[in-house]
């Protein structure tokens, strides 16, 4: 059950981000990419080649990165502000609060290589706090797409949305999960699998692991509902309440601390509206040991088989 997925089926969502941004830029002269010496890691090399004047590289200066983004929006540009998520959100959080969220500036923040994507580079480069930091800020939708299709759809949506948002992307390969014609709807979870025994909720790089966990559970006679919940804020309360009432138990999994992220957001809704047993999987409030992102996700109990085991034991508490 834990056979590795063929890597040829895995896709780096940054490619979908970059291709979509280039298409949008070709259609709309207002689109600009802003980065902090991250042309390569943000996959903006082709953008730079096609639209050199619209690639604004501020150098290694994240406070400036976000502030300049706000100013570009004020001047009528449509900025996609890109940087490694750990630096973008951690270093420039006050700029994100005051210049973007509070000012309601029409800036698209794009956190690249979020979660533990930087693996062996260690906890300074991990971004397992960014949901917690950003989802408390008004006016700022927080979105973590699960595959390249949802990434492209979310970037397309962001360009058309009149306000700021935070797109949380990874560099870790993920398989296609959603249909090619998927349209992103803010705050709407996607049911990837129907089930009535337990609900599994994830986003980003964890969604495909849940899909596999559900297959494992099915082989044991347990029907799990699988929700892809890309939008962490505004959270899909309706889908969560329905999951609680119809399945009676919820497991969340995320490439983030278990404190303050997707699991916490789901738990807030569950506590308020439909209390049921829950299990929140994620980084358990520690700095990760050395290892790749995939290794660390397994290490922290998020291998598909481990997720399935957690779900099975949670059902016993119903």
């Amino acid at each position: 059950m834990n056979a590795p997925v063929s890597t040829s089926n895995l896709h780096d969502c940054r490619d979908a981000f970059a291709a979509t941004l280039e298409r949008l830029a070709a259609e709309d002269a207002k689109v600009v990419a802003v980065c902090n010496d991250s042309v390569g890691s943000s996959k903006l090399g082709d953008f730079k080649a096609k639209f050199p004047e619209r690639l604004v590289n501020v150098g290694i200066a994240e406070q400036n990165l976000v502030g300049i983004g706000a100013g570009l929006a004020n001047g009528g540009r449509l900025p996609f502000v890109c940087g490694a998520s750990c630096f973008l959100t951690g270093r420039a959080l006050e700029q994100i609060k005051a210049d973007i969220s509070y000012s309601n500036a029409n800036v698209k923040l794009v956190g690249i290589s979020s979660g533990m994507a930087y693996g062996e580079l260690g906890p300074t480069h991990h971004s397992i706090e960014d949901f917690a930091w950003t989802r408390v800020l008004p006016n700022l939708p927080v979105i973590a797409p699960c595959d390249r299709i949802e990434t492209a759809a979310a970037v397309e949506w962001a360009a058309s949305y009149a306000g700021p948002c935070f797109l949380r992307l990874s560099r870790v390969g993920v398989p296609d999960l959603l249909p090619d014609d998927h349209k992103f709807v803010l705050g709407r979870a996607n049911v990837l699998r129907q089930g009535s025994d337990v609900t599994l909720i994830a986003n980003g790089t964890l969604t495909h692991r849940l899909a596999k966990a559900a297959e494992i559970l099915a082989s044991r006679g347990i029907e799990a509902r699988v929700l892809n919940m890309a939008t962490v804020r505004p959270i899909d309360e309706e889908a969560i309440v329905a999951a609680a009432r119809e399945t009676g138990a919820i497991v969340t999994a995320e490439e983030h601390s278990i404190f303050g992220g997707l699991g916490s957001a789901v738990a807030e809704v569950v506590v308020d509206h439909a209390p049921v047993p829950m299990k929140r999987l994620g980084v358990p409030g520690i700095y990760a040991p050395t290892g790749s992102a995939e290794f660390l996700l397994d290490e922290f109990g998020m291998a598909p088989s481990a997720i399935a085991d957690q779900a099975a034991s949670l059902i016993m508490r119903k």
Partner: protein
Amino acid sequence: MQPKELERVARQIRLRDLQAVYAAGAGHIGGEMSVIDILTALYFRVLRIWPDEPKRPERDRFVLSKGHAACALYVTLAKRGFFAEDELSTFLQPHSRLNGHPNCNKVPGVETNTGPLGHGLPVAVGMAKAAKLSGADYHTYVVTGDGEMQEGSNWEAIMAAAQFGLNNLTLVIDHNRFQQGAALSDTNDLAPLRPKLEAFGWEVTEIDGNDMEQVVPALEHRGSLPHCIVAHTNKGQGISFMQDRVEWHHKVPNKQQYEIALAELSEAL
């Protein structure tokens, strides 16, 4: 408007600012008095603006990075017609849109929310860069406090402005020599500012920032580099007992002090 007339308007703004701070029982009067001549010159002569159309795309941009001087900005905006002067009586009152720091989504004429220091200049760099990208000919002005220049984000922005060739950007440093708790010279002096900015690729003009005859031409200057005006000002300018006294950063005058200040400013009218 000529400098003599601008001086008269500045005195009226000082008087109204004093009244608003006294009525509200809070404010940052020292740094408001120091910057009012610059605000007056901008709003009554230099800025290309349309008060009844505050979001018109071709407007010049102004950012008050030292957002704690919000009251002075509110008085100036109201006097210039962005909103009714009567509303100034709501300053800091519950649900008033005239908060202790300016809010761009509530107050017409405010471009971005400021309050935490070191935010306005990076945003202004973005505004000026946007004009370069789109070919717009608006000019961007930003006023920082001098203590505020201790924030590292400003120096990120100063480097970027030079790199981007933003000769459509003017930074005014309100150099009143005092920050909240002490003189700059006793904290982190920053002096001399001029060669620092010049070394970073800016053109620098030093002026008496409380002398309208010097303020106006400096603001109207255009060159080939981003322009910094080091405006030497006095904290509490115009009110004798406040001048250059650090405690008047955010102290509120008592009744007796208020009446003395009122008399001094009224006399100057």
